[in-house]
């Protein structure tokens, strides 16, 4: 990361006098690609952008996957595109900082009023001299500001990607939940139909009939609600992907991938976050630049304004005079104490902010990791134990039904409970993947050893799988010798 920052600084130092809008974005692209394996692009209304639009259409024509959704967002999220413009602003500031202040040409001319004598004129060309000393430092401050802005933008990009992944999982799960609600409705409708027939045969009361019909109607309403939730989730994803019009017709057929058999190595995630996270890096840069600004202020505290120039003067009756001028501000009263004090405070503030960010990042990583492991346990418990048990309940209910010990109502109730268990399982898996995306965001990149969502689809397992030792639920702790915003070198 540092290497990058340094490289970036070198790059900027070499040619900062002209404005190259793409440069900052290229850096963001490389930062993001390094972390997500996906390119991002700044859409600036140029002919090549039509190419991008075509690419978008190809991406959306096929079934959406999590990775593909992230790619679409990186290319098309309007908020992200807006953020990229910040880089232009920042770079303009940087170019500005590298320019010498312009020389001042002053001229005056005086005409005799009495009619005697000749007119007098005076010209001077004055250049503020201090810039020559402060320019390199000022440039450095501006560069650092630019780097910090670049990092911040890249961080935004990653955050957007994480949100896309989360929302994608939500949509994916919701599609399956809608399917399950349909099954529940089917079961309830079958029960209601049976009640109707039983009532027609004169075997049950109006009360039973009404109760069972009401249950079926409730199932219908539940389905409607779930379907609405699917629409809302899809629209959330549409917003993140910046889609409108026909492009919102994307499909998504892949089922929610099962929780991976093994959890990615979760040790040293805190260090990884401190090392990888771009917002922490940005805060670090911010702190550094405040320090440089402070240095600049300190080193120039006894320099007042220094202006050097030449001037020419011609008196009315004298010879033409030509000579240098020096204008020197005497730092007697204002020695930039206030500015320095402010910068010192701001620098300390930056340090504190960095510290806060780092401590929070570590804590968030731990919490997200605990949540991930916990959800994993829940999902696995459902998959290995609860779902096979529910399967067995249905199977045994069917046998009891065959032996005329239970009626269809109980049989359907068993089926409904099985579906509900499957629903709870799906929700756990969905939450797992959302927690996974969140942890990736908090760590600032893909989790070590984790791949994109596996292709394995969760099914209601027919047989209980053999028990497996679960990964520990304990928290990994660092030894605490490093400062919170430093990463462990490992």
């Amino acid at each position: 990361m540092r290497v990058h920052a340094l490289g970036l600084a070198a790059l900027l130092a070499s040619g900062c006098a002209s404005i190259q809008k793409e440069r900052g974005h290229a850096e963001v692209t490389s930062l993001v690609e390094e972390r997500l394996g996906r390119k991002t692009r700044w859409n600036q209304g140029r002919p090549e952008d039509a190419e991008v639009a075509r690419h978008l259409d190809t991406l959306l024509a096929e079934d959406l996957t999590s990775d593909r959704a992230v790619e679409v967002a990186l290319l098309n999220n309007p908020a992200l595109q807006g953020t990229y413009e910040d880089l232009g602003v920042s770079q303009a500031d940087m170019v500005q900082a590298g320019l010498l202040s312009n020389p001042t040409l002053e001229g005056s001319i005086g005409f005799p009023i009495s009619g005697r004598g000749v007119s007098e004129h005076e010209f001077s060309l004055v250049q503020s001299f201090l810039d020559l000393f402060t320019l390199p430092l000022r440039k450095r401050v501006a560069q650092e500001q630019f780097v910090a802005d670049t990092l911040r933008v890249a961080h935004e990009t990653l955050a957007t990607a994480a949100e896309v992944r989360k929302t994608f999982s939500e949509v994916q799960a919701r599609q399956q939940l809608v399917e399950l609600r349909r099954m529940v409705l089917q079961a309830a409708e079958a029960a209601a139909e049976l009640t109707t027939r039983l009532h027609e045969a004169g075997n049950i009361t109006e009360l039973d009939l009404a109760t069972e019909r009401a249950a079926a109607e409730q199932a219908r309403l539940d389905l409607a609600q779930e379907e609405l939730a699917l629409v809302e989730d899809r629209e959330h994803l549409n917003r993140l992907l910046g889609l409108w019009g026909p492009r919102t017709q994307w499909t998504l057929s892949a089922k929610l991938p099962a929780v991976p058999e093994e959890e990615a190595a979760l040790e040293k995630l805190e260090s990884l976050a401190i090392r990888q996270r771009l917002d922490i890096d940005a805060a670090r840069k911010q702190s550094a630049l405040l320090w440089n600004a402070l240095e600049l202020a300190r080193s120039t505290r006894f320099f007042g304004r220094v202006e050097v120039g030449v001037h020419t003067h011609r008196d009315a009756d004298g010879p033409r005079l030509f000579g240098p001028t020096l204008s020197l501000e005497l730092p007697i009263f204002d020695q930039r104490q206030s500015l320095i004090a402010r910068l010192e405070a701001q620098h300390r503030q930056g340090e504190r902010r960095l510290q806060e960010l780092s401590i929070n990042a570590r804590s968030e990583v731990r919490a997200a990791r605990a949540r991930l492991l916990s959800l994993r346990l829940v999902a696995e418990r459902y998959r290995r134990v609860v779902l096979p048990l529910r399967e067995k309940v249905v199977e045994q209910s069917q046998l009891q039904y065959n032996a005329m010990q239970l009626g269809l109502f109980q049989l359907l109730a068993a089926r409904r409970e099985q579906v509900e268990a499957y629903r709870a399982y799906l929700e756990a898996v969905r939450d797992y993947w959302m927690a996974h995306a969140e942890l990736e965001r908090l760590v600032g990149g893909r989790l070590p050893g984790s791949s994109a969502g596996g292709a394995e689809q969760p099914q209601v397992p027919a047989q209980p799988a053999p028990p497996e030792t679960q990964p520990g639920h304990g928290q990994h702790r660092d030894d605490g010798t490093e400062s919170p915003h430093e990463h462990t070198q490992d």
Partner: protein
Amino acid sequence: MSTRKTDTGPDSPSSDALSGEPADSGVQPEGTLTRRSMLARTGATLAGGALLLGGASAQAQADVPGARRPREGSAADTGRRYAKQDWQAPGMPNRDYRPVVVPNGTKLPWKVVDGVKVFHLVAEEVEHELAPGLKALCWGYNGRVHGPTIEVVEGDRFRCYVTNRLPAPTTVHWHGILLPNGMDGVGGLNQKAIAPGETFRYEFTIRQAGTAMYHSHHDEMTQIALGLGGMFVIHPRRPVGPRIDRDFAIMLHEWRIDVGTRRPNPNEMTDFNLLTMNARAFPGTEPLVVRKGERVRIRLGNMSPQDHHPIHLHGYQFRITETDGGRIPEAGQWPETTVLVPVGSTRTIEFVADEPGDWAFHCHMTHHVMNQMGHDFPNMVGVKPGGLDAKVRTLLPGYMTMGQTGMADMGDMGMAVPPNSIPMVGGKGKHDSITMGGMFTVLKVRDQLDGYGDPGWYENPLGTLAVAATGDELRRDGVDVNAPPQVEPGAPENRRRG
């Protein structure tokens, strides 16, 4: 001279116990036995008389439970432990009595020790088959459920050791038997319960004749519900009433064994789902086999926790000749086709089997001729499933609507059911499936018999079997099957529905 079955085999009761009927069932002229019996009886009477006359002899001594005697080891203690009792020499099978037949059951072996009939009951857990395909862990005696039938003769001295191999204490109560109070077997009241591993001795003189029972009287709810009981048959010392050729003993009981479980549930109060005769449910019950013309006695004891059983015999009228109080005077014997056997009672019926055939013998409570009836199954009679089956099958591939016309198809459908369960109804019959279960068996009366095993199905003589009416018959008798059914005036309410 008619012939009848006699028992010329060894008197070993254990061979009876194994087969449920005399081991060596040859046929002998009646006179032989009569003469033998008469001799035996005379001998017994003489022996009895000798005992009475002879006073106390070492052979005829027995402990008198609860008798007053000096405290052991005290100065007054003479070491004498036995007191004289007014009991007679042991009654012997086929001499003093015709042994009972216990369909599906056994009898408790005994031996004579010093003139006392000595029995040994072992209470223990038993895996018992209630019907083919349905086994349960019950509590019984000597590896049987119910316990083997005890058979004695009025005047016998009865000594029974009871060993408890159950995990809980138990006692044995001699139900309906007249005995000293301390032998009555009510845990806590009459005795200390027999702890697991202990063996207790019960001893008393049989002073009555008739049909009694024995069962646990400790934690009755559990122990009786799990099967701890048996029949106790006491033959009169001298024959009473007409001579009996076949004497059956059947204990009625009811259980709750949920489909797919393997232990009776003793907590059930009313909702019993398995009704048994000698702890077997139809189609697991053995038929009662009788030769035509024989006088048949059926002793019924009801040990059900909650239900009385109106036991109905087809094809005959019978007389109720005994209650558990003993013989009913001839003038008080009722002709019946159904005998109500109340809970905790015995009833004995007698009739002459003069009409051959396969005759149903069953409890007339319709739910008592069902096996493992499911009470959570909705009333499906008259329901038209229409497209429901297809719809439900998308959710439950194995589904099929059942019971729209009743339960009769239950036994034949062959659908997968939980392990260790039997269909509610259905046993193989000659003409079709017999749509009954539970307390149902068949009295098989035949002109000829090869032994007393199941002779197979009855061949109905020509013209004595109900068959589909032919068109000619219908025309001949002017029966139009499509015409509205007719009723005589006087029953105006009796209108056809629809």
